[in-house]
C-alpha cells in the first residue's frame, strides 16, 4: 500500500488535476450557458499545444529569445479564436433547433480539427516532441521529488481559476453570464446581449483549454492531433462529477479525477485507463447532479 498511496503520487495527481481543471472549466461554462456538450473542447486544447509548438520552434530557429508569457498569450489566443469560430460557424445557427443538432455538429467540429490537423502535411498524424520551453529543475524534499513543471502547472491553473472566479462573481460580464445560465429569456429582457455573452464564454473556455495544452506540452512533451480526445473525456467526467454547469464543482471534480487516476495507474495501468469511465458510471447511477450540483426538475 505504501508504495502506491504516497505523497509523491498525490503531488503527481494534483499536477494532472490542474490540467484537467483548465479543460473541464470550459466544458462546464459552455454547458452552463448553452446546454451543449462541446465535444470539440478537447481539440481546442490540442490546438493550444500545437500553437505553442510552432511559436517556440520558430523562435528557436531564429535564435530569438521569446518570453514564456508571450507563448502562453499566443496559444491561448489561438485556441480562443478557434473556439469562437466553431461557435460562430457550427453552433450559433442551430441555437434554437433541437439540442441534438448542435451536439452532432460539435462532433463534426471535433473530427474536423483532429483530421484536418493530421492531414496537413506540416503537422501530420505522428507524434512530435514538444520543445523545452522551461528548463526542468527537480527539488528534493525528503524522499519526494517536485519538478518545477508541477509548480508551473499548479500555479498557472490557480492564477487562471482565481481570475475566472473573480470575473464570474465580481464583474458585470460575470453577472451577465450567471444570468444567461439561469434564464436566457429573462436575461434578454434585462438587456443582456446573449450572443455576445456566449461568445465571451467560448473565448474564455477556449483560452483556458489552450493554456492546458501548453502545460500538457511542457509536462508530457509529446503532442499529436488526437491528444485531446482522452483528456477531453476525462475532463468532461470531472465536470459531471463536480456537477455540470458549476464552476467550483469542475475544479473539485478535476482534482479528484487527477488524483484517483494517478493512484489507479500506479496500481494497474489498465485500471488507470478505465477509472474515469468507472467514476462517470458511478456518478450517473448514484448522484447524476454531481457533488456540488443542485437537482433541477425539467421544465415543460
Amino acid at each position: 500500500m505504501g508504495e502506491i498511496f504516497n505523497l509523491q503520487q498525490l503531488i503527481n495527481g494534483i499536477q494532472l488535476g490542474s490540467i484537467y481543471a483548465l479543460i473541464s472549466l470550459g466544458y462546464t461554462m459552455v454547458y452552463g450557458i448553452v446546454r451543449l456538450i462541446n465535444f470539440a473542447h478537447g481539440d481546442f486544447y490540442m490546438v493550444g499545444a500545437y500553437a505553442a509548438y510552432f511559436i517556440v520552434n520558430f523562435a528557436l530557429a531564429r535564435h530569438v529569445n521569446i518570453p514564456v508569457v508571450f507563448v502562453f498569450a499566443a496559444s491561448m489566443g489561438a485556441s480562443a479564436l478557434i473556439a469562437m469560430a466553431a461557435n460562430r460557424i457550427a453552433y450559433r445557427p442551430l441555437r434554437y433547433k433541437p439540442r441534438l443538432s448542435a451536439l452532432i455538429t460539435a462532433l463534426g467540429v471535433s473530427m474536423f480539427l483532429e483530421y484536418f490537423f493530421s492531414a496537413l502535411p506540416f503537422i501530420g498524424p505522428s507524434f512530435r516532441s514538444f520543445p523545452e520551453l522551461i528548463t526542468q529543475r527537480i527539488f528534493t524534499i525528503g524522499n519526494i521529488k517536485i519538478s518545477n513543471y508541477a509548480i508551473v502547472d499548479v500555479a498557472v491553473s490557480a492564477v487562471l481559476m482565481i481570475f475566472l472566479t473573480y470575473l464570474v462573481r465580481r464583474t458585470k460580464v460575470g453577472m451577465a453570464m450567471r444570468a444567461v445560465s439561469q434564464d436566457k429569456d429573462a436575461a434578454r429582457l434585462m438587456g443582456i446581449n446573449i450572443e455576445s455573452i456566449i461568445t465571451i464564454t467560448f473565448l474564455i473556455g477556449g483560452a483556458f483549454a489552450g493554456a492546458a495544452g501548453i502545460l500538457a506540452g511542457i509536462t508530457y512533451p509529446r503532442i499529436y492531433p488526437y491528444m485531446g480526445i482522452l483528456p477531453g473525456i476525462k475532463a468532461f467526467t470531472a465536470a459531471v462529477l463536480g456537477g455540470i454547469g458549476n464552476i467550483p464543482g469542475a475544479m473539485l471534480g478535476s482534482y479528484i479525477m487527477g488524483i484517483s487516476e494517478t493512484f489507479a495507474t500506479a496500481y494497474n495501468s489498465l485500471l488507470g485507463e478505465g477509472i474515469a469511465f468507472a467514476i462517470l458510471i458511478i456518478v450517473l447511477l448514484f448522484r447524476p447532479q454531481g457533488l456540488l450540483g443542485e437537482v433541477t426538475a425539467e421544465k415543460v
Partner: protein
Amino acid sequence: MRNKKTILFIVYSLIFYAIIFLFHSLGIISDYILHIINLSLIYVILATSLNLINGFTGQFSLGHMGFAAVGAYISGILTTLIWHIKPGNPGSYVLFIIAMLVGGVAAALVGLLIGLPTLRLRGDYLAIVTLGFGEIIRTIINNIDYVGGPRGLLGIPKFSNFTIIFITALLTVILLRNLIFSSHGRAFLSIREDPIASELVGVNTTRQKVIAFVIGAFFAGIGGALLGHLLTLAHPTQYGFMQTVMVLVMVYAGGMGSISGSIVAAFGLTFLSEGLRILLGAIGVAIEWRMVVYAVLLIMIMLFRTSGIMGGREFNFLLPFNKEE
C-alpha cells in the same frame, strides 16, 4: 394489406439479390465490387440499427462500433478458437449462425449494462458514456492476449458470403420496420418528439429507451459478427471512433427516422468511401482527408438539411400500409 406489402418488399429484394448474383457469376460485377456490396449491406444493418437509437428514439449513442466489436469478437472466439469450424458442410453454417446470434446477444447484454444507468438521464449523458465505452472496449481488447491483443483476432473463417449477408440485412430491415410500426415504435417516436409529454400519456420512457438501445446493440453485434467473418479478422482499430462516425454520418445523411434513408446512405457512403480511397491514393494525398470530408459533410447536413436525404420519409414499399389509408 400489410402482408401484401411485405411480400412485395421481399420480392423487390429478391430481384435485387438475383441481379447481383447473376451479374457476379457472369463476371460483369467483379469480386471487388461484390465485396463493396457486401460491406454496404453490413453497413445497412449497422446504420438502420443506429437509426433506431439515434433517429427514431432521439438518443445520441456514440458507441455503435463498440457493440459491433463485442459481436465480432464473441462470434469470432466461438468459430475460430473454440469450435475450429471451416465453411463447407451445412452443419458448420448452422454453428456460424448460432455464433452470430450469441455475438448479438452479448452485445445486447453490454448495451443493457450501459443503458440502464445512463438512459434514466437526459440524452446528452448517453453520448459521453457511449463515447467512453467505445474507448474502453478497445483498451480491454488490446489487453486480452487470448484474442490476440493489439494484433487482432486472426484466421476467422470466411463464413459471410453474399447470400448470408443479404438475408441477414433483409431480416434486419423487416424486423426493424415492424418494430417501428408497432406500439413500441410509436413510443420511441413520442420520446423523440417530447419526452415529458410522452411520460404524461403513460409511456415508460426509460424502459422504452432501454428497449430501443438494447435492440440497436443486438443488431450492431450481428453486424460486427458478419464483418469479422467477411474480413476474416477482427482488429481493435476496425471498431474505433472513426468507424462509429462513419455509421453516424450514414444515419444523419440518410435522415433521422428513415430506414430507407439509412439504406440509401449506407450504399452511397460505402461506395464514396472506396472511391475517395482510390482517388486520394492516386493523387497521393493523405488518407486523413477522407475523414475531413466526412466531418464537413456532417456539419453541412446539420446546418442546411437536418432531415437528411429522405427527410424522414420512407420508400412506399417499406411502409406496412398504403399512404392514402
